């Protein structure tokens, strides 16, 4: 009996050593969940392969998890089941929810002192958004803002100056009148019915979307949907729709639907993320029309404040071994380093979010040679730094987005602007109150 046990124990010990030994020799395996399909998926895949090639002791596996919302939700469910991926891409409006969720670690605490310089290299608008409480909780990655894309060929056909895209809401209306009168295209303008654009237009007017300085000074307790700023946007949107100028696919947040309307030349203008510049340049070439880009049009008589940095950042989840954490950090900092940011910008249109990557691009005269990429970049750098353009932090922001989108949709269907916005405001405040009630303080 005694002997048997000893034998058993020593066998266990040997086995343990074997496991530990093989563990040391084994690669660290990391999973990385992101929200990019299509061309970007292949792009990311190639970058990850490069990383794996250069880091033989680490193996990163990138997985496409659907939309931003889907990715966040999948990560939360996986963490609940105790199997979170190491790295998750989370959209900007998920920031507060990610902070509150208790699933992630503040990434800045894990960055070794020798690599801190990379965090100080982020361009101001990006650092402004993602530094919450003075700290990077996640590594900013894909950042964008909305710009105006227009079809120069159709502009010429309508007798409009192809070098002068409309700058204001009023100018868009005028251009639309001409485009439809000249029968240059069946519709004038399109963009996805997405709350993101409302948020951007609110910021452009220097207005806030939530109290407590957009939820930046303290936790937001009141969402401002029924504001002068939102009313301006909704009223203009409705006018465009009623006059038959505005087209969309009918689905909420349908980026592809809007792109398709523009690419098939059903509409002469498109407002969408700068991250699609590369896609639209290729599409314009293939469909034989000339592409122009310009600033996001803003309400008339309003000073241009600038846009909020949209996009997503990379979060590190809790509950992994030190070795895995270190490997994950190595990947994160490599993935967003100067060279890769340059590459990422050229391949998509997303901002080069590091000062040094901007310098590289300038040195290469990239923006002179590729003017389509320029509008977004200028727009970003002309943005005034204030609470409005810093962007709102709202815990249940994903749900507030849906509420805003449904309000806009009901306005397009004929509900009076005031009534729809007031109802949405109440609903959003209720949702926020419920959320804040749940958060353990």
């Amino acid at each position, binding site marked *: 009996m005694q002997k048997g046990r000893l034998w058993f124990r020593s066998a266990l010990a040997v086995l343990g050593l074997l496991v530990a030994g093989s563990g040391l020799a084994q690669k660290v395996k990391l999973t990385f969940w992101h929200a990019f399909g299509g061309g970007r998926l292949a792009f990311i895949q190639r970058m990850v392969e490069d990383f794996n090639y250069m880091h033989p002791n680490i193996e990163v596996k990138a997985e496409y998890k659907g939309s931003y*919302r889907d990715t966040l*939700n999948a990560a*939360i*469910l996986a*963490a*609940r089941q105790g199997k979170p991926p190491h790295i998750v891409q989370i959209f900007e409006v998920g920031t507060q*929810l990610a902070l*509150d*969720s*208790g*699933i992630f670690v503040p990434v800045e605490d894990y960055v070794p002192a020798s690599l801190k310089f990379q965090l100080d290299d982020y361009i101001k608008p990006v650092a402004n958004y993602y530094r919450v409480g003075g700290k990077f909780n996640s590594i900013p990655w894909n950042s964008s803002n909305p710009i105006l894309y227009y079809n120069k060929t159709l502009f010429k056909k309508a007798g409009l100056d192809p070098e002068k895209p409309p700058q204001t809401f009023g100018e868009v209306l005028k251009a639309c009148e001409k485009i439809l009168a000249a029968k240059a295209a069946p519709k004038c303008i399109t963009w996805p019915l997405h709350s993101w654009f409302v948020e951007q237009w609110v910021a452009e007017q220097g207005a806030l979307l939530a109290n407590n300085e957009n939820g930046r000074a303290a936790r937001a307790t009141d969402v401002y949907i029924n504001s002068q700023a939102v009313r301006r946007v909704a009223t203009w949107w409705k006018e465009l729709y009623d006059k038959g100028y505005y*087209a*969309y*696919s*009918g*689905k*909420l*947040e349908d980026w592809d639907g809007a792109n*398709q*309307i523009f690419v*098939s030349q*059903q509409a002469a203008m498109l407002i969408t993320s700068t991250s699609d510049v590369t896609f639209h340049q290729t599409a314009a070439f293939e469909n034989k029309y000339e592409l122009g880009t310009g600033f996001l049009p803003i309400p008339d008589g309003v000073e241009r404040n600038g846009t909020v940095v949209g996009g997503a950042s990379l979060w590190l989840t809790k509950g992994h071994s030190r070795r895995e954490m270190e490997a994950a950090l190595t990947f994160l900092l490599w993935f967003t380093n100067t060279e890769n940011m340059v590459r990422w910008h050229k391949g998509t249109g997303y901002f080069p979010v590091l000062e040094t990557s901007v310098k590289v691009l300038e040195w290469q005269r990239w923006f002179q040679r590729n003017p389509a990429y320029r509008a977004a970049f200028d727009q970003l750098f002309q943005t005034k730094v204030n609470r409005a353009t810093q962007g709102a932090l709202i815990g*249940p922001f*994903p*749900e507030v987005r*849906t509420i805003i989108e*449904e309000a806009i*949709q*009901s306005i*397009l*269907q004929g509900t009076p602007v005031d009534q729809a916005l007031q109802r949405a405001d109440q*609903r959003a405040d209720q*949702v926020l109150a*419920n*959320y804040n*009630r*749940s*958060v*353990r303080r």
Partner: protein
Amino acid sequence: MERDDRAVFRRPVMAWALLLPTLVILSLFLYYPTIQTFLLSFYQVNFALIFADKIFVGLENYKTVFTDPVYRRVLLNTLLFSGSVVALSLVTGLALAVLANQKVRGARVYRLLLIWPYALSPAVAGVIFLFLFNPQAGVVNYVLGEVFGVRPDWLTDPRLAFLVVVLTAVWKNVGYNVVFYLAALQNLPGEVLEAALVDGATPWQRFFRITLPLLSPMTFFLLVMNSIYAFFDTFAIIDLITRGGPNGATNTLIYSIYRDGFEFFNTGMAAAQSVVLFVGVVLLTMVQFRFGERRVHYGG
């Protein structure tokens, strides 16, 4: 001595032992989650926040479901949607089955083609209709535009979007009804129909007075199955075509549960709606068995 058809276990222990695996699986995957859902529906809880407090709110979630205009719209949509899907699938299913039952050349090919859509997943059905009814580039609007000069905004108009979703759900499901109706039609007692023919009944009379009543057990079965389909299996179709829009026009209970549960993490609200749906289905099934059973003609 009368023979007893029913085999009886002398000792109940054996019966329980044989039932045990089923009971274990049912308890784990059915009873336990059901009870949990009932309990959760009395709480306000945010599933996304790991350290969140679970707050007891009593019947507040139910109150919201029945008084909040957004959720009332969802309930109304669910009734309208399920009603139209079930009615249309049954009527078209029967009509197509009767036609496919004719002795014509290539009947087998027609039958196969009619059943085909059922073999597709709801997601594929959703994508097909999404392309067909795309206002700018869809085939439907191309044809309508060329022939009639109209290009309706199928997916931005609430009523049209509702129609498209119903049509997709019906198209996807009709094959199932055709299969079952065809089987039933082929098993109808020939003598009765012949007798009617001899007595000089018109084809319409034969159909409505004889075929339809004889098919009633099948109709009853399909009614239950189609209701369940309309309630639960139409999620992918709605998600792909409209995402519950425009303006909540196609937001049904199952979609709303998904959104509250897995998109907004209002787990309590999702649980309350699940309970409402559960009770609805139980009531419906009871009503169907109580009143349906009497009218059903099982023949024989």
